[in-house]
């Protein structure tokens, strides 16, 4: 143990600055009714973008008024969340992204249909197809590059060593569930916990399109805030439909990063083969499979998570904690209890359990089991279709949203369709229009709102810069949320700094 949990270090109480964000690649599909051929995905994303810009953006910018970015990337619609200061905030903005896309679906579909022939637009927040392709939901965490004791290289090695067993086992509450084993479903037609598991092939890698890894170092060289911070980029996780799952995934990871920055942690179980463990845990929805550890023993995913949870509890008992951190700790512990005692209690919160409950119920109604299903049979395709539809953003097709409608008391007379079982819909709707208040997203978003309302000449194409007329303002520090020049522009209307200078010179 590097440090006794009973030892109080004065620096451990200082506030840790964190930025949380997600980059989600949404699957898109528009097949023309007449030709039965898929429309080029860049055209589909463009139709969505134009509809989004009409409500939340400007023609000159790739960013939207809440500080997020929507663009075409490798055949998908990528939504990058604005920089958020807490896991809860990031999870709310993730739901806001889903809600904004849902809101423009029919408008974009209309645009695409006007090309002739009509068709149905589908936007799906999943990570795999049946042809062996995958796309991601990447997590970003701003963390310190070095500690009081460790230089950056050593701290990175420590971070990898400490985080890998946690990330491998985090799927028991963060997995989105998948029908089929193997990248092409070639191994077995059975349910597994993670969408992405079969596509994770290394422990550490720089790449995001090949050799996908548990820990990605592709963004390690990014310079952030005078090099004080590192951008930890994780590519292994599934996109979540459940806001609770997104919150807990980000929240537990953020909590461990804080502990690492304080060098406050004890012994953790090290996995003999992390990639194999990731796959084996994913393929055991009973959560009882024991994976080999380096000390010759074995442990289940829940047991490994409990070791982290115990250390986090010890940490938060000794050092100041935010109310959200305490809430994360409590929810994390309760989820682990339920996974061991009665996982059905997590239906509605944990995506893979919710999806599995729906699919098991559907099979049960027909007197079928997973082992009865023949490859290529009608039921085989029905289950694959439902697997996709769980993540479908359309209110008329998405099974996650259908689930919300069924379990809520709103019934058919509800004024608003439910967005999530965890977050207040009003808060989510507000997040579509408003940037997070305490990061540079605030400056970016406020300027774009001013551009929409007052015609302020603003262009934002980069995370680290906003352009006012021909005057650029650098926003290198992601934690900077106030700029005096921007404030005066927002206060005085659409004058740019250049306008102001000219005006002063004239005077």
């Amino acid at each position, binding site marked *: 143990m590097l440090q006794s949990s009973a030892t109080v270090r004065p620096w451990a109480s200082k506030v840790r600055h964190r930025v949380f964000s997600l980059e989600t*690649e949404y*699957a*898109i*599909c*528009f*097949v023309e*009714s007449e030709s039965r051929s*898929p429309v080029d*995905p860049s055209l589909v994303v463009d139709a969505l973008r134009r509809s989004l810009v009409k409500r939340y953006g400007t023609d000159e910018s790739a960013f939207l008024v809440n500080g997020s970015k929507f663009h075409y*990337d*490798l*055949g*998908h619609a990528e939504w990058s969340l604005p920089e958020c200061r807490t896991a809860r905030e990031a999870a709310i903005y993730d739901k806001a992204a889903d809600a904004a896309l849902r809101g423009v679906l029919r408008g974009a579909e209309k645009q695409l249909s006007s090309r002739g022939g009509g068709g149905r637009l*589908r936007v*799906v927040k999943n990570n795999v*197809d*049946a*042809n062996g*392709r*995958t*796309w*991601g939901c*990447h997590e970003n965490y701003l963390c310190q590059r070095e500690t009081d004791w460790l230089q950056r290289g050593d701290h990175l090695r420590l971070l990898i060593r400490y985080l890998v067993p946690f990330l491998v086992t985090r799927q028991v509450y963060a997995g989105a569930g998948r029908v089929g084993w193997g990248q092409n479903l070639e191994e077995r037609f059975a349910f597994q916990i993670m969408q992405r598991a079969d596509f994770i092939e290394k422990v550490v890698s720089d790449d*995001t*399109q090949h050799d996908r890894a548990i820990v990605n170092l592709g963004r390690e060289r990014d310079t952030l805030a005078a090099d004080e911070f590192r951008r930890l980029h994780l*590519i292994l996780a599934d996109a979540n439909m459940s806001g609770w799952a997104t919150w807990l995934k980000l929240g537990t990871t953020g909590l461990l990063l804080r502990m690492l920055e304080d060098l406050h942690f004890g012994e953790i179980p090290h996995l003999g083969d992390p990639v194999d463990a990731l796959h084996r845990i994913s393929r055991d929805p009973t959560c009882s499979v024991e994976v080999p550890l380096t000390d010759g023993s074995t442990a289940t995913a829940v047991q490994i998570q409990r070791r982290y949870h115990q250390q986090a509890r010890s940490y938060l008992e000794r050092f100041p904690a935010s109310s959200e951190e305490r809430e994360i700790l409590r929810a994390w512990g309760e989820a682990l209890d339920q996974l061991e005692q*009665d996982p*059905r*209690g997590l*239906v*509605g919160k944990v995506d893979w359990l919710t999806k599995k*409950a*729906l699919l098991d*119920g*559907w099979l*049960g*109604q027909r007197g079928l089991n997973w082992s009865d299903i023949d490859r290529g049979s*009608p039921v085989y*395709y*029905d289950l*694959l*279709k*439902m697997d*996709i*539809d769980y993540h479908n953003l359309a209110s*008329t*097709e998405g*099974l996650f949203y*259908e*689930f919300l409608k*069924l*379990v809520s008391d709103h019934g058919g007379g509800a004024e608003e369709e439910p967005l999530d079982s965890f977050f207040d819909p009003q808060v989510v709707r507000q997040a579509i229009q408003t940037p997070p208040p305490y990061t540079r997203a605030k400056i970016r978003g406020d300027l774009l709102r001013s551009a929409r309302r007052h015609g302020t000449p603003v262009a934002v194409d980069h995370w680290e810069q906003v352009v006012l007329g021909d005057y650029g303002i650098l926003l290198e520090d992601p934690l900077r949320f106030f700029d005096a020049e921007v404030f005066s522009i927002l206060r005085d209307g659409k004058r740019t700094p250049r306008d102001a200078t000219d005006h002063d010179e004239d005077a």
Partner: protein
Amino acid sequence: MSDQRRIRKEKPSSLGRREEQAPTNLARGAEEAEAVDRHLKAMADLVRRMSLGQTPSSDEARIIELSDNRPELRQTSEEYVTEFSDSQTMGQ
């Protein structure tokens, strides 16, 4: 457009949810609407109890009768999955 194509467009989803379209065959439409309504009510109850950790009885499960036994609807699930997968490319 073939009759087969028209039927596919009007299909309920695999869970029995139905697009809001006026059925061309009123008798069949009313029958299907009733079946879908029955399914949704039963499914709501099923999911509620699942979320509370309960399992529906076999009698209750039998009440939930989906109208997806027709070959054209089965074909549609395959078509749906194929369309979706053919539209995707490798991402990050």
